[in-house]
């Protein structure tokens, strides 16, 4: 009996682990009083967009009195963990959102995406930007937001110091040296959280211009010990050794890194365009723009930056209210509604004819049409364990490891996790 008790205590501990996976409670909003209307469920992870989406939903319900929308917002980690499971019985998430990459692949494999190919509202989106929501020739999801996952820089500071946006790796280092001479940290790098998974994209974009490089890595045709990734790790090492990123970068959170840029202690924030509004909230006097490091010679540079079409709108294939769900997506893709969403959330969108009113969105809109950007390479790693191996090699190098050693260790993990 005693042995059973010992075993039980161990079993109990393990089962509690799963309880530990639960996060904050999701928040619900919606029109629950409309008795004659069909209520659809809309689930996503963007808590910061709640106010504007509440307003948009109210407008939708005014225009469509026979449909009401119950919006449930989950913390993003919880959404990744439980979102797709909620979709399975069709009662939740008539309209839902998906991240590109591993989550999109998993939901597609489970057959939970309704095929949206041929729907009228698809033409409301920029056709070049929605390919990430396609699989095997069908449009399964429609990315709504367009973010640029590349450093935000203090344009005003650059102008004061007479600096220009570098066009090559040597120019980038000269620029960083000038900033250091002026007592400014060139790059605030939030290595404790999102830094590695964001900055890796622009650091590798020209070292490995082949957009299929991670697909090849996953199927064994490429290796992290090859030139493209070892050079990327060497470039990270150089940033760390030369002091181009702040000391103790692996312990720095995004809030601390943002504070460095807002206080003008650092010139660049190694995250993405989605932090520009928050930076301006912290310091409204900042003039901001985007800039990716070009890690090769100017003549070899293929890309100028990174884009990600994300927050992918989709209809649950298990839903019994698919038509109403499609009505809601149609509404979200109207230019005036999309413009409201864009301006109130400070995001560029994939919807056609959006009018950007805020200065920062207007000033960076040229990145959509005039600059050659590539889709975020990290999201092309569809195996989460391989993605983790890639990212850990960056952390390993920033922690002092030799780039080739770090690449070899990461490659071993890739081989262990290859499917």
């Amino acid at each position, binding site marked *: 009996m005693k042995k059973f008790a010992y075993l039980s*205590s161990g079993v109990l501990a393990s089962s509690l682990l799963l309880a530990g996976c639960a996060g904050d409670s999701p928040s619900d909003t919606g029109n629950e009083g409309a008795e004659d209307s069909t209520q659809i469920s809309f689930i996503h992870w963007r808590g910061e967009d709640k106010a504007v989406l509440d307003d948009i939903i109210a407008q939708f319900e005014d225009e469509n009195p026979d449909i009401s929308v119950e919006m449930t917002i989950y913390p993003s980690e919880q959404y990744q963990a439980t979102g797709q499971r909620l979709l399975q019985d069709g009662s939740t998430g008539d309209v839902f959102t998906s991240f590109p990459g591993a989550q999109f692949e998993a939901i597609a494999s489970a057959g939970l995406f309704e095929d949206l190919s041929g729907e009228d509202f698809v033409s409301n989106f920029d056709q070049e930007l929605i390919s990430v929501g396609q699989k095997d020739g069908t449009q399964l999801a429609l990315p709504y937001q367009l973010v640029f996952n590349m450093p935000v820089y203090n344009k005003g500071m650059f102008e004061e110091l007479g600096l220009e946006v570098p066009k090559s790796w040597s120019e980038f280092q000269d620029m960083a040296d000038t900033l250091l001479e002026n007592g400014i940290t060139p790059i605030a790098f939030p*290595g404790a959280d999102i830094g590695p998974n964001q900055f890796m994209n622009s650091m590798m974009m020209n070292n490995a211009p082949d957009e299929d490089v991670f697909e090849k890595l996953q199927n064994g045709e490429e290796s992290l010990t090859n030139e493209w990734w070892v050079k990327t790790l060497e470039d990270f090492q150089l940033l760390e050794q030369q002091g181009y990123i702040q000391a103790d970068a692996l312990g720095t959170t995004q809030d601390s890194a943002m504070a460095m840029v807002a206080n003008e202690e650092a010139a660049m924030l190694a995250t993405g365009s989605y932090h520009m509004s928050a930076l301006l909230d912290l310091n409204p006097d900042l003039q901001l723009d985007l800039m990716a490091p070009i890690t090769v010679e100017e003549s070899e540079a293929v890309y100028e930056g990174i884009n990600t079409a994300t927050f992918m709108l989709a209809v649950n294939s298990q839903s019994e209210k698919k038509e109403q769900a499609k009505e809601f997506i149609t509404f979200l893709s109207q230019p005036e509604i999309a413009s409201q969403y864009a301006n109130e959330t400070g995001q560029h969108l994939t919807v056609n004819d959006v009018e950007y009113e805020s200065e920062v969105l207007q000033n960076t809109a040229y990145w959509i049409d005039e600059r050659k950007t590539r889709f975020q390479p990290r999201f092309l790693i569809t195996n989460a364990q391989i993605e983790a191996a890639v990212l850990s090699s960056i952390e390993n190098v920033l922690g002092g490891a030799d780039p080739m050693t770090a690449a070899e260790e990461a490659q071993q993990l890739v081989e262990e996790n290859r499917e």
Partner: protein
Amino acid sequence: MRVSKSIYLFFLPGLLLYAIFFVYPTISALFYSFTDWDGLSSSFQFVGIANYERAFTGDTIFRKTIGNNLKFMLVVVVFQTLVALAFAMIVLKNTKTTIFLRALYFFPTILSSVSVAFIWSFIYDPSLGILNQVLELVGLEFLTQNWLGNADIAIYSLAVTQIWFHAGQMLIIFVAGLQAIPDELYEVAKIEGANKWQTFRSVTWPLLAPSATIVVAYTTIQSFKAFDLVFAMTGGGPNNSTEIVATYIFDIAFRSYQFGYASAISVIFMIIIAIITFLQFKALRSDRISY
């Protein structure tokens, strides 16, 4: 006295709850550990013991998480027990001050783990954090560290947070155990001329063994399932240096959608915890108190 058979009906509700919420999920986990189920699809294949083979021979990170977990557990069990015992002896007597101190020491326990993670992430922040600033202020700059960003020390930084979080809880168990020791035994020890150490070794510790057993076993289990703290403070990084089995199970199940493999790791993990707990009970022999 004869007991009516109907009394067994009173066991039924608890037994049902236990079966539904514990036995069934545990058996399910065992079942799925022999499959390649992704957690989403309605179909899956039986893969035999392939998941277990992978865990033992083909998964470097899993082996690393076991090592990290053992390091974390050892530090937490040893220091949390010692800290709790030391503080319990300080606040043993019932005075206004000690009652206040007990409440103060217990306070971290009532905080949510996310709040604790937030507080300690701020304390440990290398540039803005209080810890490094205080060390600099008192002339101990050489001790300043990148507490969560240095792969060599991050797991120990998390252990300190875990000890701060839960030592107060263990203190209460020790206080209860200490207060249950009859005063007469101390009086006898005093008459016999025992010094403080001899009194502790021969009177206090043997009689405190049942409490110590509970504290050590509970701390061990707690340190194995410190998921939320690790998840919120480091996410397992840098470079997997703070990845513990619990966070790894989460990654495998919910990020990689390999529920079959995650179930196999859970079963292995459950067995490891059961063995360690069993060995601790054996070592502490809480049921045999001798005078």
